[in-house]
């Protein structure tokens, strides 16, 4: 249930383009034709789905305050549990993203030349797409509790971005046949249409949270505490599951 909620939330309510304006540069530059927009959108989904969980692991086991506690347990490093490396997160995240993009490019080129031909030119563009780094930074600041949810969040926000660029590309293809005031042509009208679309997307705001919050106002604190415990349990389960996988 959690997964479904986060999935739809990241597609519609917290849509990368319409709610937080991430990835606007490539959104405006590559949305002249539907076919190229689809290529870039697919590449964004793919890279977000890879980098968000990866950066989640980095955040959880290296960067967070107290994340290095495993060093203490395993190797007896003193004071590891008080270390807070979160100021390094920008550089770690961007390095992960840049290398992952490069790696993905090499792998795709090797195993699927046809996919490379359609996606390849977009991959270098993606390293500097704000949506990718933004995905990781929002994952960190919203404290997404588990690896599975991080994956859901990555895929969801990728699909949200894909949806946005597909929509604007379709509109821009049609708008070529209408008489826009000369000074608004091109960039200006694209901005205003995006603004109108963003207003439309705001109506999704009440979809998941609006109704529930009012009902559960009183027992909220308890529920929160319960949730946290649950999440911790889930975390532990996942870690165990991962470990067993590694052992196998």
């Amino acid at each position, binding site marked *: 249930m959690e997964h479904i909620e986060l999935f739809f939330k990241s597609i519609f309510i917290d849509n990368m383009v319409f709610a937080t*304006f991430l990835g606007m540069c490539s959104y405006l530059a590559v949305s002249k034709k539907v076919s190229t927009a689809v290529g870039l959108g697919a590449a964004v989904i793919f890279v977000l789905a890879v980098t968000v969980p990866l950066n989640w692991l980095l955040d959880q086991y290296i960067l967070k305050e107290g994340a290095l506690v495993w060093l203490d347990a395993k190797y007896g490093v003193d004071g590891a549990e008080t270390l807070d490396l979160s100021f390094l*997160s920008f550089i770690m995240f961007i390095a992960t993203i840049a290398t992952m993009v490069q790696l993905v490019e090499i792998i795709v080129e090797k195993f699927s030349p046809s996919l490379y031909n359609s996606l390849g030119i977009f991959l270098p563009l993606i390293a500097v797409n704000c949506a990718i780094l933004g995905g990781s930074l929002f994952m960190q600041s919203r404290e997404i509790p588990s690896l599975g949810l991080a994956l859901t969040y990555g895929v969801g926000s990728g699909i949200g971005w894909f949806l946005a660029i597909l929509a604007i590309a379709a509109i821009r293809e049609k708008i070529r046949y209408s008489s826009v005031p000369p000074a608004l042509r091109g960039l200006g009208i694209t901005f205003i249409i995006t603004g109108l679309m963003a207003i439309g997307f705001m109506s999704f705001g009440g979809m998941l949270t609006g109704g529930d919050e009012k009902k559960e106002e009183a027992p909220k604190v308890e529920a929160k505490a319960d949730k946290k415990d649950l999440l911790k349990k889930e975390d532990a389960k996942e870690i165990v599951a991962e470990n067993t996988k590694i052992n196998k």
Partner: protein
Amino acid sequence: MGLLSKKDAALITDPLADNNPITIQVLGICSALAITAELKASIVMALSVMAVLAIGNVVISLMRNIIPSKIRIIVQLIVVAALVIIVDLVLKAFAYELSKTLSVFVGLIITNCIIMGRFEAFALANGPWRSFLDGIGNAAGYGLILIIVGFFRELLGSGTLLGFKVLGDPIEKTGLYAMGYENNGFMLLSPMALIVVGIIIWIQRSKNTSLIEEN
């Protein structure tokens, strides 16, 4: 200006209007829109970008002959990321409240297309002094739009500028509010940032018709 030759001065003045990074080059829009609901945040964001872009341009320009061109993107990203971390720490130390408002958008300066764009287009081919001026100029052009958008959104949205109630008090009904004026809360919502930028582009291009695109 005695200090700057005419050519150098153009590096600063061009990006302010006819070669503006946001309205003409279409770079750096990501962060420009999300934080402009308040004038103060816009100003701080503009100054941060200016610091990062000017220093980064100088660093890249000094290293331009020793960076292998194959890995230049990663080198550039690391340089920006290091500078942004410094800016982030400074903001957290001296303006904590504001750094909470800006949240992830300080970090997103790293992927601000203006910065990578200027590195690629200018700093890799020019000396440090000219790169520095280019950085200041482009960041100023970016900041100008940010401040204009922030000004209108804060003035029309909450009736304040930098937190001062310039239009009177909406609760005690003084100033303009006494005549039945109401704040337009819609201006504070994110879609309006896009529409305000769209209108700025419209005005700029109707004044300078050579900038008009063919669809």
